[in-house]
């Protein structure tokens, strides 16, 4: 078959501002919804000026005749496009219908990434070898036109949570967010989304408290809503990084206080390896150690100690030791 170079779709004459209706036989009577949607996307993308609903229905086969059914069909199509991340812009126009629609190229296309082949390959490998439990990474590669491989044996398995995409978008576009947390509605100017020690954390500026706050994303309660891009403002010199705690017992609303935990000779070395030498407040002759932890979340501290079983003992302060005893006694009731 001879390859004939025909002008690209976009090189052909642009749509005239007023369109004559498509001849009724041009496409036949049965239009698959996918076909209507595809034509709609092409028409909306290729128009220089916004098109009214009437002009669109004339240009895109498959819409019901003028009336409520047509309007509803169009609204459904707009929703479908929006669900796929295709934004249909609504703009004021002259004429009886007053509003027109189009897809703005900036909303549809990414600025040219100019990825070199080795950079494309690296992204491909990343998506294939990191298991997120979510296929959107591969979809992203497709959108970018990068070949995608089969999933590889995982080099990292990182959980994906509902709400992460919304939070990511909010951090990226500097939008304020609102969500439920431990039964309260919270407002945050988000600054950082980080996976650390097996959990996703969100760090931001809490305007009501005028301070940095950290949240465990798996504890965030729906609905998560984001404001307009740019609606968040994080104070000058805000250091989100330092608000990200090293240990789970440092994420909390309690007043920070030192807690001492004794760990025996078997588990001691591993605990010190994980927390660092600076956490050690005493080394005992029998090989056990006492570590000092700065705690703002008592529950997290107790949970950590319990994971060590009988190898660890909370020494002080008395109320934390008592809380541990209370917890353990609960098993006997």
């Amino acid at each position, binding site marked *: *078959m001879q390859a004939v*170079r025909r002008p690209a779709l976009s090189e052909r004459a642009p749509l005239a501002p007023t369109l004559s209706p498509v001849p009724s036989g041009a496409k036949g009577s049965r239009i698959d*919804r996918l076909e209507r949607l595809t034509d709609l996307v092409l028409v909306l993308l290729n128009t220089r000026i916004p098109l009214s609903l009437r002009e669109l229905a004339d240009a895109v086969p498959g819409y019901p005749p003028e009336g409520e059914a047509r309007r509803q069909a169009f609204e459904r199509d707009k929703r479908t496009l929006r669900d796929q991340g295709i934004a249909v812009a609504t703009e004021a126009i002259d004429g009886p219908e007053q509003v027109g629609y189009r897809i703005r190229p900036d909303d549809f296309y990414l600025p040219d990434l100019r990825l070199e082949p080795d950079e494309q390959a690296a992204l491909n490998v990343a998506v294939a070898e990191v298991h997120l439990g979510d296929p*959107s990474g591969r979809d992203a590669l497709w959108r970018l036109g990068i070949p995608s491989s089969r999933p590889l044996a995982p080099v*990292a398995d990182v959980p994906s949570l509902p709400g992460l995409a919304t939070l*990511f978008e909010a951090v990226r*576009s500097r939008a304020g967010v609102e969500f439920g947390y431990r039964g309260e509605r919270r407002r945050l100017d988000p600054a950082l989304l980080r996976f650390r020690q097996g959990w996703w954390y969100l760090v931001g500026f809490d305007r009501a408290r005028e301070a940095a706050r950290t949240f465990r994303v798996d504890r965030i309660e729906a609905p998560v809503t984001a404001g307009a891009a740019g609606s968040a403002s994080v104070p000058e010199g805000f250091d989100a990084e330092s608000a990200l705690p090293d240990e789970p017992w440092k994420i909390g609303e309690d007043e920070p206080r030192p807690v001492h935990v004794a760990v025996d000779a078997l588990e001691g070395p591993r605990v010190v390896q994980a927390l660092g030498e600076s956490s050690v407040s005493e080394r005992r002759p029998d090989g056990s150690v006492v570590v000092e932890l700065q705690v703002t979340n008592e529950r997290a501290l107790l949970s950590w100690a319990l994971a060590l079983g009988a190898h660890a003992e909370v020494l002080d302060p008395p109320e934390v030791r008592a809380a541990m005893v209370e917890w353990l006694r*609960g098993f006997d009731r």
Partner: protein
Amino acid sequence: MSEPQRDAGARLERLLAVLTWLAQRDRVPLADLAERFAISPEQLVGDLELAACCGLPPYTPDRLMEIIVGEETVEAQLGPELGRPRRLSAQEGFALAAAARASAAAHGQGGPGAQGGRHGPEDSSPLERALAKLEAALGGHTAVGVELGEPAHLHTVRDAISSGSQLRIDYLSAWRDARSVRVVDPLRLAAYGGNWYLDAWCRTAGGTRRFRVDRILGAEPTGERSQHADGDELSKLSELAEGPFVPGPEATLVRIAISGDHAWLVDAVPVIETSPMPDGRTEVTLGVVSTVWLERLLLQLGPRTEVLGPPELRDLGRDAARRVLERYTPP
């Protein structure tokens, strides 16, 4: 012939992706395209033929997308516009950025939020450069960071894998609550959730074992080459299922009943099955090889978590709590 309304959006998305791909190439084998986009060849041909009827008004042949579906290949003349990369949705942007950051972390490249290589952009790996460009396009700053942790002996293990060296490790086993020295041929490192795992051929045990790197208390090369580093064992590894732990046939199935605020369990721990109970609790089935592990889990979950079976494990939590309580009770 037409699929239900609710799938039209997903089909559109896939069709646009196929068209973007086609617009960048002259001719593509159908089988290839079908596999790449996870669609049956029949469905692909159907959608391509539909697309060949799409274009701009008045939909005369010169205004339609030019797609010629042959026996084994498809050829398209779609022009550069359709081949341009499209704006990513929030979910896609997140998934790509998170995967790239996690991959960088897994290979010891860049910090969790770092831009550029250790010594400057010229020094960056292809992944780091790709990340920089991606993040510039997405808004100019790093919106997501991934840290996989750096247990004390990670670098020693990683170096041993890349140099094919045998290691002697001092390992604190979680299963048996005991410490032992083992000689291993390291095969592969992987990070599951917040922990690093080493799959290695263990000479002491005479088989492939999985070790948690943060439980390695000491590691040094023995001076010998790893004997299992290539070939058989490595390919057998892909049979080792994904996830930190998969109970083998020797595992005991343990059923526990948990309440609402322990929903995190299902994601944090390898769960075989869950099912709702009439009283509002959830029954969770776990594969358990180590009672030590189960004990610790029960201690953390608390007294209201009930072991439903097997019967000999019903008092495991209570007995463990009593043992810990002995440390708090004066003799």
